[in-house]
């Protein structure tokens, strides 16, 4: 209650200061206008009427000027600052404003931008270096040859299951490590999901099942649409680890993809253990935050979802992304919205990661 009262007091004092400022400015300008008009009174034939009209005109112009050029842009900028401080906007979006800022404030925003982007760049290059080191250590061709060797030996020994499993693993690695494109077709991504699920089924047996709804009349077009590489597999993995694996009885994960005029809507749902309302709220809030803020919340879980969401928003814009629905003991549903894209050229000038 005290916080609320002090907040109200602050607001009131802020408002009163602003009103005083405006009134002083108004009187000052009005006074100046009056003096000027009085000195040139002879230009008005009937004196008083024109005099009053001119004052009123000045007054209206001043009010309009104050509202449209000062108050409105200022309040919009204030709202942007508030959204930025709560994590909804990035620094780039904060700087897109109509207010003429003082050079010092502009410099301040730029220097914050440098700090944020350099930290981000360091973080990114660190992750990239780690990834490269891992890739170099693995040596993809050596890995595939070895896996092929294991598969051949397994076939010779009559261990068909082992052979299939090794093949699935080789296919999975080939897709995740070797393929360097940012965007892949839905067909390729679904194939990778099937491969990943096949590997998981060796562990869980018939306890888990994957259903991909292919009944849509637009299915051939859907398969040709482009989505960021490794969009579905991390969600599928999440659904198995945090949902169906913990469930007693059969766990079903469904992938449903729909196409509208402008969007591709992907739903990955499971009948797993679901999550508590509080956790769901935290997860969705985290997904809604800008990249710089959400990456610092890894300890609360949902890192894979956050990464997928950040990549979608970076590639396609913040209007797109991911939202999670869940109900305890009923299941979880992850919904992804992506614009309909059939080739990378359609992305235009948008920067890809």
């Amino acid at each position, binding site marked *: 209650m005290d916080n609320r009262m002090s907040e109200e007091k602050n607001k009131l004092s802020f408002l009163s200061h602003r009103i005083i400022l405006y009134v002083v400015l108004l009187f000052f300008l009005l006074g100046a206008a009056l003096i000027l008009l009085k000195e040139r009174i002879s230009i008005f034939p009937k004196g008083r009427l024109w005099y009053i009209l001119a004052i009123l005109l000045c007054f209206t112009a001043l009010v309009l000027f104050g509202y449209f050029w000062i108050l409105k842009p200022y309040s919009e900028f204030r709202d942007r600052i508030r959204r930025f401080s709560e994590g909804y906007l990035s620094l780039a979006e904060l700087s897109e404003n109509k207010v003429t800022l003082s050079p010092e404030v502009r410099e301040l925003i730029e220097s914050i931008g440098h700090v944020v982007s350099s930290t981000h760049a360091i973080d990114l290059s660190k992750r990239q270096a780690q990834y490269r080191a891992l890739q170099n250590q693995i040596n993809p061709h050596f890995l595939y040859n070895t896996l092929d060797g294991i598969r051949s030996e397994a076939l010779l020994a009559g261990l068909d299951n082992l052979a299939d499993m090794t093949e699935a693993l080789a296919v999975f690695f080939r897709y995740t490590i070797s393929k360097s494109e940012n965007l892949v077709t839905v067909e390729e991504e679904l194939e990778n999901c099937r491969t990943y699920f096949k590997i998981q089924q060796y562990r869980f047996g018939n306890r888990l099942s994957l259903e991909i709804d292919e009944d849509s009349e637009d299915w051939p077009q859907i398969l040709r649409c482009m989505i960021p590489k490794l969009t579905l597999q991390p969600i599928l993995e999440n659904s198995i680890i945090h949902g169906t694996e913990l469930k007693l009885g059969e766990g079903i994960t469904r992938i449903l993809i729909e196409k509208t005029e402008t969007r591709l809507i992907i739903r990955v749902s499971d009948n797993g253990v679901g999550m508590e309302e509080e956790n769901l709220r935290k997860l969705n809030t985290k997904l809604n935050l800008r990249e710089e803020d959400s990456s610092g919340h890894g300890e609360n879980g949902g890192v894979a979802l956050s990464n997928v969401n950040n990549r979608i928003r970076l590639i396609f814009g913040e209007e797109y992304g991911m939202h999670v629905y869940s109900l305890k003991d*009923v299941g979880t549903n992850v919904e992804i919205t992506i614009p309909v894209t059939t080739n990378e050229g359609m992305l235009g000038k948008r920067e890809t990661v």
Partner: protein
Amino acid sequence: MKREVLRLERVTCKKANSVILDNFSLSITEGEIMGLLPLDTYGLDELLELLVHNIPLYYGYVYYMEKCINSWKNYHHSENPISLIDSESTLVNGMSVATNVFVYCSEFHNQVIQNEQLNGKLQPYLKDLELKIDPDTPVERLSQLDKIIVEILRAVISGHRLIILREISTVLPEKELKVLFRIMQYYTNQGYSFLYISLHYEEILQICTRAAIMLNEGIETILEGNDLKSDVGKKFYMDYYDSVIQKLKNADIRTEKIPLLEIRHRTEKRDSNISFTVYTRECLVIQTLDTNLFHKMADILEGNIESPNTEFLLEGKKISIYSSRQIAVLKEEPVKSMLFPEMTVFDNLCISLDHRLPAVWRNQKIRNTIRQEFIRVIKKDIFNKKISELSQTEKIELVYMRILLQKPEIVFLEQPYKGADVEQRRIICELQETLVRRGISVVILAVNMADSLAVANRILRIDSTMQIREYKQREFSKLPKNLPWSGLFRDEFSKR
């Protein structure tokens, strides 16, 4: 290819620095009936305001027919082509059906209304729906169902692709609800979409293909297919279900069969005469299967109309229902219609005490006693607060406490569960039981029984021909299957 009629993408709205919609995401496709089950009512009014009138967003995007119509970046105050149909009709009384239907149309600019022309335009729509509504009839003469149909027609003719129906079942009995569902199905086949808001899962099951569960200003989950049909719905009402089941287990025939109030209504037609008795310490539910009859009964009880043909006999003596303090009436949504917002809780509480304690306004001792009693029952000290400072639940408690203090013999409650969320319904249910325990007979008047079944000892169903059918608690399982709670009675009594 599917087409999205509406998409709310991570919408956050704030009012006076508090969040009213939090990360709200929802999509409705063309030709779909989407259910919305609010487990609490926080943010529901604002959501509807956002959909129909566009309110500024704190964050997020709103798309209508795949075009962005509102976002945190660009806000334009404008009306959206989305219709909201509530239990309160928005038709203009005094104007004909045809005029009401075409009033929003862009071509409706003629200064002289050409009724013949409008009627001609309307007829094909009525013919398609196989309805017999006279386009010249003034709307106030229409039944509640016809009013809702006219509102749907107005939306369709105005080109609104999304129609929101909010708690319509509170004014329509089951039979009329089925007619409405048939019309909704007809228009979904034509590509129109509906957002059907109901506080009852059983009702959503009957008509919706998908259902969004709303809790704490956001969408918790979306159910479809088998998930929607399974027993998932029970999860939302678990506490409420448990309390009702417990009550049913403990309840034997509680009613002492002493007649208290007899109501006789005579008409010119002998077979239309009705008469029934309310007994002491019972909770009687009167369900009128005709909305006009419900309104007539409510008007008589509230004293809006005088009915020389209706007699009220309290313990054998004829009484005037308006002036008698032995009979109390709680109107529909009493927190809106029966509290004085600028007065304190104490003033509102004691406003009907003058017959019992004339000195209540000047005697501090009496006031303190009332205060203690009030705190003991609702376990909160809200005595000096103004009504505007109370939560919805506190307002409900206050209204019922006023009845407890007034201590009438009988209280008539008009649609007591209308607009109440799950938690509030549980509280209303408990308060009604408290009234019965304190010796006050409770008579619930309802068009749709909703949760009344959970508290009722006896039900009277009156149809449009004034025929009464009585159901005692053991016969509740014979009530129509789609009524909320009737399934519970079937389960409970089959176990016994």
